[in-house]
């Protein structure tokens, strides 16, 4: 049976533990790619990803492995994104596999993402092969990492594979283990068609390209197909397998992994996790596990030059072709004019979008302080979801506000427990539990308001633990909190783009910090600028930027009026990079005040 010779698996690892390097070795050993072809790391294709060292978009690759049993096996290696913002995508990629290699850095040991990925794999009932990588490192602590793994997954020490992906040692053993321990896929090529989309990308020429795993039935080129979730019908224009390039085939059978091009224009038609079946005589039910991922973090994105508004819209539209998790709706700010309120999976996702807008689309944008979705219960009994602080109803109409909490897992050497506890308290965390994975690693669980984590928690955690701690989190629930809206007034006018929703106990300090920071970044102007922080009608802090005292050149250079005029024009040009709010010129940095301010202290 052909199924016996297929293995579908993933490599899961904490960032930088060597996932890509190990994948490269497999590609070489199976002659899928020659060492020369192998640019650094084949599986990561976007520049941004490479720079950040994070695989954002997962893909798959098919290899042919001639095993010691003289049979040839098809290995489908399915890559997974490596950041908590994208954990749903990871879970779908894992759903396409029967097993995983759990790779842990011999010098770093188990980290938060190792755990979260492991849990995702366990949820999907996958076979786990533990691998310790980088054993060549002088700082490798292979024995202690072995203990951690034994503790964690209950395996035996001798079931753990040791490798140096860099040097290429231990690779064959792992490849044999894949055959031995990871079960072949199951499924019936004659049953009704059930195809899982585990990833989707947008291609300018081809439209949406889906990466798929066939669970049941057989998909043939040209067949009409139906997408359960979007309820759309398309045709299987092209199907194929994924080598280094796409290779079209006539059919894909149960158990196989490949791609599908269907005429769907963008990735919102081919959502990750959706099930595809035949348009006629299709399966009754989709595969389980589909979730419509919802943005968790929101921020306003405004063009610095208002003329760029349409370009920004185009750019966002193009980005969503490839990123169904990004949402945007037009927003008007008194301060910043026309822009968009965008929703992101998390802070990293937000930063990536921002960066792509600036780099790939050459736009100058201001993005406002990110916030979460609040559930606001009104005195009328109604509940409204607020993703923009300016839309918060007046306090009199509010019965209570609930904010999203996450469950966070922090893994760290025990000596940093004190620091982590302190930081967590500052961030309004509820401490849940501490578990020692081994004497050198503790696993601490907290419930955090998501709003606190999206600011700078991660940076602070890293710095207070010298980089040793790692963090992972997932959404938990909405809980009531004492939240207030903090407004910033410039000469009495609210600067809506700077309004934030903060916890009552932190409002005063935050107001002060913000005012002080704004005072630093707003240059002196024609008249005095009063910066105030207010909760409702109550001013809680004030700073003033004194008026400019003198800005005049004395002489007009004889008849050289041109020179003088050009100087003034240049001055004006310089101001263009600022936003005019009322009569006040406000530099861009001001709108990021909250973020940068937090980073400073």
């Amino acid at each position, binding site marked *: 049976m052909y199924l016996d010779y297929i293995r579908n698996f993933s490599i899961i690892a904490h960032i930088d533990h060597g996932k890509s390097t190990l994948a490269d070795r497999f590609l070489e050993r199976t002659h899928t790619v020659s060492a020369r072809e192998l640019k650094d790391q084949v599986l990561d294709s976007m520049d941004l990803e490479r720079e950040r060292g994070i695989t954002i978009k997962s893909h798959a690759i098919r290899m042919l492995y001639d095993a010691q049993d003289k049979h040839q096996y098809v290995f489908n290696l399915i890559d997974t994104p490596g950041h908590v913002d994208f954990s749903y995508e990871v879970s779908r990629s894992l759903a396409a596999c029967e097993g995983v290699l759990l790779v842990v850095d011999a010098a770093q040991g188990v980290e938060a993402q190792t755990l979260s990925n492991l849990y995702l794999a366990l949820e999907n009932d996958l076979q786990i092969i533990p691998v310790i990588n980088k054993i060549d490192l002088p700082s490798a602590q292979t024995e202690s990492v072995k203990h951690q793994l034994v503790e964690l997954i209950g395996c035996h020490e001798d079931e753990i594979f040791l490798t140096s992906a860099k040097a290429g040692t231990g690779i064959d053993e792992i490849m044999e283990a894949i055959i031995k321990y990871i079960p072949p896929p199951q499924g019936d090529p004659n049953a009704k068609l059930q195809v899982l989309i585990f990833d989707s990308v947008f291609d300018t020429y081809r439209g949406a390209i889906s990466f798929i795993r066939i669970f049941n039935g057989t998909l043939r080129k040209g067949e009409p197909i139906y997408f359960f979730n979007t309820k759309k019908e398309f045709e299987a224009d092209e199907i194929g397998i994924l080598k280094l390039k796409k290779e079209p085939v006539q059919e894909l059978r149960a158990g196989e992994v490949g791609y599908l091009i269907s005429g769907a224009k963008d990735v919102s038609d081919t959502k990750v996790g959706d099930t595809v079946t035949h348009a006629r005589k299709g399966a009754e039910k989709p595969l389980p596990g589909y979730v419509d991922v919802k943005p968790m973090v929101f921020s306003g994105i405004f063009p610095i030059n208002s003329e760029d508004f349409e370009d920004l819209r185009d750019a966002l539209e193009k980005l969503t072709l490839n990123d169904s998790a990004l949402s945007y709706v037009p927003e008007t700010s008194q301060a910043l004019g026309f822009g968009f309120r965008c929703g992101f999976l998390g802070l990293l996702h937000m930063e990536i979008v921002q960066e792509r807008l600036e780099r790939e689309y050459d736009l100058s944008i201001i993005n406002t302080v990110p916030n979460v979705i609040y559930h606001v219960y009104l005195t009328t009994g109604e509940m409204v979801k607020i993703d923009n602080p300016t839309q918060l109803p007046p306090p009199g109409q509010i019965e209570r506000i609930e904010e999203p909490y996450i469950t966070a897992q922090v893994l760290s050497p025990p000596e940093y427990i004190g620091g982590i506890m302190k930081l967590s308290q500052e961030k309004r965390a509820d401490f849940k539990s501490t578990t020692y994975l081994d004497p050198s690693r503790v696993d601490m669980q907290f419930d955090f308001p998501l709003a606190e984590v999206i600011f700078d928690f991660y940076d602070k955690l890293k710095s207070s633990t010298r980089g040793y701690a790692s963090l992972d989190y997932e959404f938990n629930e909405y809980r009531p909190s004492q939240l207030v809206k903090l407004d910033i007034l410039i000469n009495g006018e609210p600067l809506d783009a700077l309004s934030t929703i903060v916890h009552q106990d932190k409002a005063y300090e935050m107001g002060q910090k913000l005012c002080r920071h704004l005072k630093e970044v707003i240059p002196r*102007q*024609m*008249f005095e600028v009063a910066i105030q922080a207010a909760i409702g009608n109550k001013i809680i802090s004030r700073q003033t930027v004194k*008026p*400019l*005292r*003198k*800005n*005049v*050149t*004395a*002489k*007009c*250079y*004889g*008849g*050289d*009026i*041109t020179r*003088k*005029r050009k*100087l*003034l*024009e240049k*001055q*004006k040009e310089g*101001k263009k990079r600022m936003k005019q709010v009322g*009569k006040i010129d406000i530099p861009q940095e001001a709108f990021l005040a909250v973020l940068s301010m937090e980073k400073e202290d």
Partner: protein
Amino acid sequence: MPFNRSHYCGLYIHIPFCEHKCEYCDFFSVTDNHHRQTFVSLLLQEMELTLQSTHIDGLFDTIYLGGGTPSLLTEHEVDILLQFILKHFRMDTNTEITMEINPGSLTDKKLASFRRLGVNRLNVGVQSFVNNELKVLGRIHDADKAFRSVEAVRNRSFDNIGLDLIYGVPGQTQESWQYSLSEAIRLQPEHISAYNLTIENGTPFYDRMLKGEIKPSGQRMETLFFKQTVDTLKQASYKPYEISNYARAPKFYSRHNQKYWYHIPYLGFGPSAHSFWNEKRWANKSSMSDYVFDIENGQRPLAFTESIDDETKEFEYIFLGLRTYDGINLQKFEETFGRAFKSKYGDLVDSLLLNQLADMDQSFFRLTQKGMMISDEITPKFL
């Protein structure tokens, strides 16, 4: 002409020679005498080239000999120059002929001859009456010499004299500035220009500032100096009429400089000189060798020409107008630009008035002293 202002054209001649380059100087001038002998003849050739290529029919009523150091010219040279001008340009009988003079290179004899040749207004580059400051500035004369040269000028029956002073000199104090102002007042010139020192890129001052050897006096001090200047000179009955210019009476306003501020046509000759004519502005090259080369090859030594479109002209009109104490003549503005000033810039005008940075009556919109101090901040907002 109560304000000594007319709509007749002006003529500027740039004499680009100095005995020594001042530390702060940003004007085009050279200290070598390479082209010194032939310079006036080059000037005449340049004027001829311009007269051939441009139709010049206006009536002129100012000649301004600036520099550089025009007082380095010989009697003979000034004679030739003025003769040529009289012959080739239509001159008003009542022409204001100003010459900038340097107290360090002046003889009594020359003065007398200049007066005889028709120069009727002198602008003396005193800059300061404090020796230390003169040294810092790199001037070639001391305070005593400056004082005596103004007296000498008076004795040669010049009845329209201007003094140039500079404030914001590194090391200057309010007391020392007060002293210079008082000495100037004691000499009773008809006109005083008090410029705030600007440390321009490319000057020795600039380099020294970067090296930290000299320190600009800073916003706070400059504000004080400015106020002190206005107060002191007003008290001595000098009337401020532009940010840096004061006169004992409106009839002593610089007729020539006002042409720059009110878009009245002027022609400039000599390297780096600027012209404004028929809604075009052009400038000559700021290089002696380029200037010589072009003229010897029968070409005008132009660095650039630009057309001043309506929008640009309007902006210039505003920023120049707001440097004057009269301010912007609202009726004239409307006539020239086809739209009421107030209706076009309503919001900005309101906020300036509200913040006492400007005031307005039936006929004029002008900056207050407070506004004038930050006019470079205010005027770009009219763009």
